């Protein structure tokens, strides 16, 4: 199905099932421990051995030799594969770090061997017996030191944000110089780790030259192509299966060392091998959100009208890597006639930087929304009024291009009302509650809506049961549930008549879980397949398919009625199709919007920051399931609190690695950090986006929240921190008098 004209009325608009807060249909499996994750799939292959991945002990250089005698002789060892056993393997399509092979070390904890043994403990003990002779080389690990020499580089996150090396509209410098009110500040965001609960894990089994990977991956079709390329085998010989994913956040968009080394280990051992990356390897062996150094300049007239805006960002990555596209949203979020965005990219010898939840926007909005708060203060304007004043219904760089929907101002206004914004004292440090300094902050939320081809197959059996098959993944997001709701709505059945099967590369290729495109596009794929199935049903029954109404398990046309079970009585009926998107994404700017509100308390003695309450008001098209959508948004808000207040991969600039590579050292928010959270979805449909009229929310929920936290800290204390996360050491020296 080609979607190239705005949606009109369709069966989804009935909203009998879609749009309802259905419980997650996989929820009971997850809460009872019966949803098997990759490493727990004991029944999929007999004789599973364990592989343990050894990471490089240096950040850059070469391996001279590896001494394996002791490891080979260790109890239970079945096979050892080292990086010296083969030339460097090709890379997958979306990655820049080489995962295995050859003697060159690109980054710390790069995989250099897998030891396969009968038990996990034996594999691990043997791996520690491998002695490695390194020839270390000096590396570049300090972004601030490399930034002055970083060349301009454009890039695309692959997840919906991107910018050229430099982009200009009008005369930024002239307008900025002429502006009566100006802001020119620098901001820094930290390297961050996805820190998902389930580590990267894969069980690999070979059957002749056919490889099956039971793994944990967000993007099955990408993964299938990448592992084939890396191993140099035909993609048709590979099957990936990933029905449950214990968190990904972009860290599992790609094939990583667990999959490659499970496959190589299984080949060498001649039996299935399971590999999970240990927690320390996740920070340095896989990918992370790269740190940024940003500069924002805003010029405005005294009435608050922005006349000039510039956003520049420098990040680092391995050679061939992409920049963190932190300037992307600034091209679209606020009006202003004279505009500049620019990105620079330094070569660093740290692990690979790549997508993490809202790549580009998350760190970019962190800086931009603080800058907007600072500018509002200079103008003497309320920060909401300042944003609304500079709101735009058209792409500011291409005024002929409208937003498909843009309810940012509504989000901010409604949020202000619900949050009690009018009661905020705009004077910093003015509100106390016992030993706490209390402040409120606001930020806009913004994240683009991405459209990706997505296919599905829907079966109808003689029991009237509908089975959805697509390689879409559920990474904790609710995919199972919303796809079941979509199929139930389309076929006119109750939710419990639908079975959803996901994550298998033998199923039709979906858009996968990334870039907050998953819900809208994969549901649209199921919609398309259901349209085909409805035609097949009508045809089987001899009904005119244009008239057929599917409701209550029945099909009605004119005065004829048949049950779905009867329709499939003579044999299963199957509909398969893909949604493909035309140029509506080019003709209209499709984005999602939010108003984020945060209240913090800052301990007047210790400068500890504790969030007191949070609100997100989101405008993101039709909400397919308010319960799963809310879960997405509160999870994203939580992650944003982490990036604003505590999450930071600490770089050892001499040795070149992320030092705090476990969950004791890399702190993410715990329950005690997260107070009352409220989420409101505006009642909206966006017919430009898809037949579902939906958009994404999973990344919208993180974009801007950190800025609201920082702005609340400023309102509480009068201390403006521009180097994130805002840990207490950055506040202490400038704190007001304790009481």
């Amino acid at each position, binding site marked *: 199905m080609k979607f190239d004209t705005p949606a009109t009325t369709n069966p989804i608009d009935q909203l009998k099932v879609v749009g309802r807060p259905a419980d997650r249909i996989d929820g009971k499996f997850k809460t009872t421990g019966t949803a098997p994750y990759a490493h727990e799939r004991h029944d999929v292959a007999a004789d599973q051995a364990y592989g343990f991945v050894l990471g490089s002990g240096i950040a850059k250089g070469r391996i001279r030799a590896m001494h394996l005698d002791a490891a080979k002789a260790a109890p239970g060892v079945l096979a050892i594969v080292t990086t010296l056993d083969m030339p460097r393997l090709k890379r997958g399509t979306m990655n820049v770090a080489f995962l295995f092979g050859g003697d060159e070390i690109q980054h710390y904890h790069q995989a250099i061997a897998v030891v396969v043994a009968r038990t996990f403990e034996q594999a691990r003990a043997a791996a520690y017996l491998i002695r490695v002779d390194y020839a270390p080389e000096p590396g570049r690990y300090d972004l601030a030191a490399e930034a002055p020499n970083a060349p301009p580089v454009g890039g695309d996150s692959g997840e919906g944000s991107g910018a050229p090396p430099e982009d200009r509209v009008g005369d930024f410098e002239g307008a900025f110089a002429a502006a009566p009110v100006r802001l020119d500040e620098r901001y820094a965001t930290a390297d961050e780790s996805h820190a998902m609960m389930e580590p990267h894990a894969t069980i690999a089994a070979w059957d002749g030259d056919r490889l099956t990977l039971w793994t944990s991956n967000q993007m099955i079709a990408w993964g299938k192509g990448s592992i084939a390329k890396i191993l140099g085998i035909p993609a048709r010989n590979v099957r990936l299966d990933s029905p449950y994913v214990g968190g990904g956040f972009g860290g599992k968009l790609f094939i990583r060392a667990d999959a490659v080394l499970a496959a190589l280990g299984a080949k060498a051992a001649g039996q299935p091998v399971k590999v999970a990356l240990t927690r320390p390897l996740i920070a340095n062996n896989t990918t992370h959100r790269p740190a940024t150094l940003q500069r924002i300049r805003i010029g405005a007239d005294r009435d608050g009208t922005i006349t000039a805006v510039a956003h520049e960002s420098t990040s680092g990555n391995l050679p061939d890597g992409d920049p963190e596209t932190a300037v992307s949203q600034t091209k679209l979020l606020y009006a202003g006639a004279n505009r500049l965005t620019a990105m620079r990219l330094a070569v660093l010898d740290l692990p690979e930087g790549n997508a993490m939840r809202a790549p580009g926007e998350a760190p970019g909005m962190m800086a931009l929304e603080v800058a907007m708060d600072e500018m509002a203060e200079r103008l003497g304007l309320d920060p909401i009024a300042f944003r609304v004043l500079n709101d735009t219904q058209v792409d500011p760089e291409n005024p002929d291009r409208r937003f498909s929907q843009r309810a940012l101002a509504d989000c901010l206004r409604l949020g202000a009302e619900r949050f009690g914004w009018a009661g905020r004292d705009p004077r910093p440090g003015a509100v106390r509650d016992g030993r706490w300094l209390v402040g409120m902050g606001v930020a806009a939320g913004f994240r683009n809506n991405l459209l990706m081809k997505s296919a599905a197959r829907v079966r109808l059996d003689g029991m009237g049961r509908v089975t959805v098959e697509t390689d879409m993944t559920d990474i904790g997001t609710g995919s199972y549930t919303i796809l079941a709701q979509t199929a139930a709505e389309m076929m006119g059945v109750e939710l419990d008549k639908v079975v959803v099967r996901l994550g298998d590369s033998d199923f039709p290729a979906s858009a996968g879980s990334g870039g907050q495109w998953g819900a809208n596009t994969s549901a649209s794929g199921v919609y398309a397949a259901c349209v085909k199935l409805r035609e097949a049903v009508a045809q089987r029954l001899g009904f005119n398919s244009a008239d057929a109404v599917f409701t209550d398990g029945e099909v009605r046309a004119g005065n004829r009625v048949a049950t779905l079970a009867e329709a499939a009585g003579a044999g299963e009926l199957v509909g398969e199709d893909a949604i493909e998107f035309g140029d509506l994404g080019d003709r209209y700017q499709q984005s999602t919007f939010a108003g984020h509100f945060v209240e913090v308390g800052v301990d007047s003695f*210790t400068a500890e920051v504790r969030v007191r309450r949070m609100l997100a008001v989101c405008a993101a098209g039709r909400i397919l399931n308010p319960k799963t959508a809310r879960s997405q948004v509160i999870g994203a808000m939580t992650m944003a609190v982490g990036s604003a207040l*505590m999450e930071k991969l600490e770089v050892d600039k001499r*040795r070149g690695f992320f030092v705090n590579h476990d969950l004791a050292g890399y*702190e993410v*928010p715990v329950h005690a950090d997260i107070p009352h959270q409220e989420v409101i979805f505006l009642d909206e449909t966006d017919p430009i986006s898809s037949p579902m009229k939906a958009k994404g929310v999973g990344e919208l929920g993180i974009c801007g929240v950190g800025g609201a936290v920082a702005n609340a800290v400023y309102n509480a204390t009068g201390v403006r921190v521009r180097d994130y996360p805002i840990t207490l050491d950055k506040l202490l020296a400038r704190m007001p008098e*304790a009481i």
Partner: protein
Amino acid sequence: MRPFTFERARSPADAAASAARHPGARFIAGGTNLLDLMKLQIETPLHLIDINALALDRIEATADGGLRIGALVRNTDLAAHEGVRRDYGVLSRALLAGATGTLRNKATTAGNLLQRTRCPYFYDTNMPCNKREPGSGCSALDGVSRGLAVVGSSEACIATHPSDMAVAMRALDATVETIKPDGATRAVPIAEFHRLPGDTPHIETALEPGELITAVALPPPTGGTQVYRKVRDRASYAFALVSVAAIVRRDGTGRVALGGVAHKPWRVEAAEAELPRGAKPVAERLLADARPTRDNAFKLPLVERTLAAVLAEARG
């Protein structure tokens, strides 16, 4: 984790004697730190002596009116003990500020005293660390040191002791009771129990090889308002950047011990004379010989401010 042999000890004396017969043996109780260290091969004992079955899990009144806390009393039980809550509030509060409920259910009193530093370089076997591998050097000195020691440290080591409980016990003048492999028992004042790193940071306590902690004794209640304040980046399940255990009497005198700043719970009795004059002079005396890194210099003003918060709280 290297292969190891395992036994269940029948008595404290047996346990200590067995430890002496097995060089490199470790006692295991809750295992909340030791097992992590073994998985990372930071600890590689060849023999484990499980002491969980020993009758060291009781809290009893002592003849002088204090409390004797068995080595195996779990942190959860100790924090909830009525006598501890009534008379040694700083201890209960310190325990509840540590780790999580599930960890506290497993972690023991003796094990808490003996837990090892959370310096990130100690936990990465690719990195030099004098504590893990004597003579290899200290990576933290010129590395990432935000959480590490500011006082009592050396050129060899700037690790901190991670315990909250031990800081309270230092303020309470607890005594560590032990049994040696030859059956002899002794009582070590907590002030002498943990060592400063000097040039032997791998030697962390006064325990001799094979010596087993059997109990921790608290002196009779000292009264006063007892406060434990732990400052950290996240609200729970994090090690202290700085913590303060304080006992403040009505007349303004009292005791103060610090966590998160040194290789041991940090108390300078002479500093306590300044308590009636407020946080600043106390902090100055406590940290008179501080040698912070650029990363952790913030701990100096943080100690003073936290102390001020504690004094304000204690004085109501």
